[in-house]
């Protein structure tokens, strides 16, 4: 059941990424906004990856869990955007 739960949340993240891509395709301004959002998220992702021990202490989770969340988030973004762009 735990695997089903994680899988469903992963699919939700992928679909959300595709939805952001769809929003970006509506208007040039929306594309810029989504690009800014994606750039900000990527910078935050990199900072969290570099400062994993500090962030894990701040969020009160283990470093392994934080890295798993970060990798899952990156995978969701890549897969969702990839599915939208390749379709």
């Amino acid at each position: 059941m735990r695997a089903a739960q994680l899988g469903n949340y992963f699919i939700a993240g992928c679909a959300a990424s595709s939805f952001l891509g769809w929003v970006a395709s509506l208007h040039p301004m929306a594309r810029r906004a989504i690009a800014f959002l994606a750039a900000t998220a990527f910078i935050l992702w990199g900072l969290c990856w570099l400062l994993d021990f500090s962030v894990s202490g701040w969020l009160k989770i283990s470093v392994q869990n934080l890295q798993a969340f970060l990798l899952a988030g990156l995978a969701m973004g890549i897969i969702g955007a990839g599915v939208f762009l390749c379709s």
Partner: protein
Amino acid sequence: MLLKMFVLSGSAVILWLAPLAALDKKVSWHKSAQGLSLVAAVSCAIGAGNIARKLAEENEIEQIKTRAITADVVDEIATSAYISQQQRQQEAEQILNPREHLERSLALTYDGEEESEPITQHQLAEPEQNDAQNAESERAERALQLKAKGWGKAKIILEVWGVSKGGSPKYKAAEAEYKRLVEESA
């Protein structure tokens, strides 16, 4: 719940992939349908995830209950085994108490009645001698305690031996024993 979770999971995947693959982005209503289907896919996936989380928590609670019941049963069995062992041990001790054990061993050791009788009597008289010694030591202790408190001889003999002062043989015997105890303790 389980069926609902699987239906929602399947719907989420279909709503996510099918419109993007089948519909044309250049047609306006196709594009709108893609957006709606993506929102629906996210909703379905989150709903299925929540159901899966509830089921996982219920499973964990059931596993904890099962472990607790198993531990209770094991504890119960261990306790009953311990109690039955103690009962068997007590029964064995009752059966083989010292006097019977002695009698049995003597009966096994000596075959002739003439030889076994005096030894058996001697062995069986030992507890009675021990009782007499215990009573004497208790009397001595009590008498010395009273003497230390400042009681008189006649009063101590009356208290400990239960004999009043006079010329009776019992009083004389008690007096002699009292004197002997006092001399021994001095």
